[in-house]
């Protein structure tokens, strides 16, 4: 069984004006199927650049990147688009849903660009099932503006899942959410991970990273720590605790 992600001495240098910015300096990492990895680091540590490379939005300047067994470091823009479509699901901090478009249509979006498109009836059904998975089936016809932040992020997750990719990339998925909703979203990600989905998440919050299995810490374009989480949080348990606390507040006179 091959790894989902295999980076071999990946470098990324940006040429901006006179100065070359060496954003990623020789990263090698392997992420196996079914892992839940949190990448951490201060801003400027190179974690966003790494995420862009992992997401096939950018190509490494040097080194090799094998995604699900395919070397993607040499592909052109069109081929990368196909890879993103089939092998990756994106979840962003600011949700990035299309406005004035229903939740269901937002979820259908990746299927539109799939090489072998499904007939629209099947595509609707598949998108609807993805919305069911994230618990938003009854809001399928709502537009993003009619949904709360947490609900929008659920739609985004459904969109990321709809093409059954082997890897889900989440870039600060809870950055725009309150703590309660953040826990709910982490609960959803943990549940998907338990069902076998590989998740790589960028975050700068330690308590959010604690929901992952493995934490990778970056600094100055290099990995400085790579360890599995010792006391992993369970979102489900955390939610129960929060509910109990609410009850206590209500009962108090």
């Amino acid at each position, binding site marked *: 069984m091959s790894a989902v992600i295999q980076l071999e001495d990946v470098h990324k240098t940006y040429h901006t004006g006179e100065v070359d910015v060496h954003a990623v300096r020789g990263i090698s990492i392997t992420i196996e199927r079914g892992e839940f990895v949190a990448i951490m680091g201060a801003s400027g540590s190179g974690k966003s650049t790494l995420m862009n490379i992992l997401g096939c939005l*950018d190509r490494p300047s040097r080194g090799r990147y094998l995604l699900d067994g395919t070397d993607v470091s040499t592909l052109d823009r*069109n081929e990368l*688009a196909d890879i993103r479509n089939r092998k990756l699901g*994106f979840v962003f901090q600011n949700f990035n849903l*299309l406005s004035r478009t229903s939740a269901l249509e937002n979820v259908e979006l990746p299927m*539109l*660009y799939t*090489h072998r*498109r499904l007939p629209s009836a099947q595509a609707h059904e598949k998108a609807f099932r993805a919305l069911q998975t994230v618990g938003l089936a009854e809001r399928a016809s709502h537009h993003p503006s009619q949904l709360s932040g947490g609900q929008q992020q659920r739609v985004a997750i459904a969109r990321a899942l709809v*093409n059954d990719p082997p890897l889900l990339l989440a870039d600060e998925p809870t950055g725009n959410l309150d703590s309660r909703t953040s826990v709910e979203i982490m609960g959803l990600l943990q549940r998907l991970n338990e069902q076998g989905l590989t998740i790589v998440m960028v975050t700068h919050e330690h308590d959010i990273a604690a929901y992952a299995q493995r934490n990778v810490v970056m600094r100055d374009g290099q990995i400085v720590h790579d360890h599995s989480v010792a006391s992993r949080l369970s979102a489900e348990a955390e939610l129960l605790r929060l509910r109990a606390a609410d009850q206590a507040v209500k009962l108090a006179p």
Partner: protein
Amino acid sequence: MNFLVETGYWLLRVVAIVKIALRALRRNKMRSVLTALGIIIGVGAVIAMVGIGQGAKSQVEAQIASLGRNVILVFSGSITRSGVHTGWGSAGTLTIGDADAILLEIKQVVAVSPEVRRGIQVSAGNQNWFTTVVGGSASYFQIRQWDFAQGCGFTEQDVRGATKVCVLGKTTAEQLFGDEDPIGKIIRISNAPFTILGVLSSKGLSVMGTDQDDVVIIPYTSAMKRLMGVTTLRSMLVQTAAAEDLETVRTQITDLLRQRHRIAPGKDDDFTVRTQEEIAQMATATSRVMSMLLAAIAAVSLVVGGIGIMNIMLVSVTERTREIGIRMAVGARPRDILLQFLVEAVTLSSLGGLLGVALGVGAAKIIAWKAQWPVLISPESIVISVIFSAAIGIFFGFYPARKAARLDPIEALRYE
């Protein structure tokens, strides 16, 4: 087989992208219409222009034909080299003797009819009508290829005797007699009673835009002596046996008349000779200038319209940078984005083209109705206009679409 399947999938994808583009246009209806306005006006102008131009051309052709067959017109007065025309038709330098001489001395000439005309009030019973009274010879009807709807024309004898007989044009007959049969009835022209011999069939508008059927034709002798009291002719019609003779006869007429009028070499003619063809050219010159002007307006309008589309598409690409980023992140290829924006531009311009066709046809119809100007709108001009406006969409939409397709998805996703 595999190729067919692939083409099928490709088509499905194209259809889906076209749907996205159409939806984006529907969301901004007002903006879409305003954007297409340049094209609408441009194509409208083209359609109206071509319609009016062709209508005018066909009308002029019909009018030239209505002048008669193998006809040369000789007018009193002349146009000098500087373009000033001195007393065209009014000074009266032509005489009946000139007309007789042309018929006698130039052998290719088969018929000559002097022509005098004046606007006169005519009456029949209690009906009054202001019309043009034309004096001509017995061969006038033959030269002008003018058939009789009823009755017949006057004879050589009537001309020689200056009898009081007349032939009515269709309009005049309708105005004075309505549904009654006018043959044998009397009309009074300046109080002189004239017996109606015949009614002519309809000829429609002349080159000058007047109703040729609003006329009473009498022997020129009667007209000159009894009604107008003139001794000179306004003009005459000369008919040759064959079309090939027109040019030679024209020079012969010029030579003959110069000799008869004793015009010294180097001096200007005191008459003007025009063949049918020249009259046609003069008549179409105006409409040609107008066509050129309209074509220039249309061309400018189409280019401006195209630039308008490009401008709005560029704005649209900037506005929707994040949307483009999202689409690219979930797997849209650059060429999918290119196609989406290109389809938007082409849809704008071709819908503009279609609306422009409607506008142009409408405008042409209104002009036709208001100005009594015939309009011919050919299906070709419509098809060409729509194809051309679609081409404008491709040309001016390509740059913005390529800009969209070349966006870096990372930058686009970060765009606020």
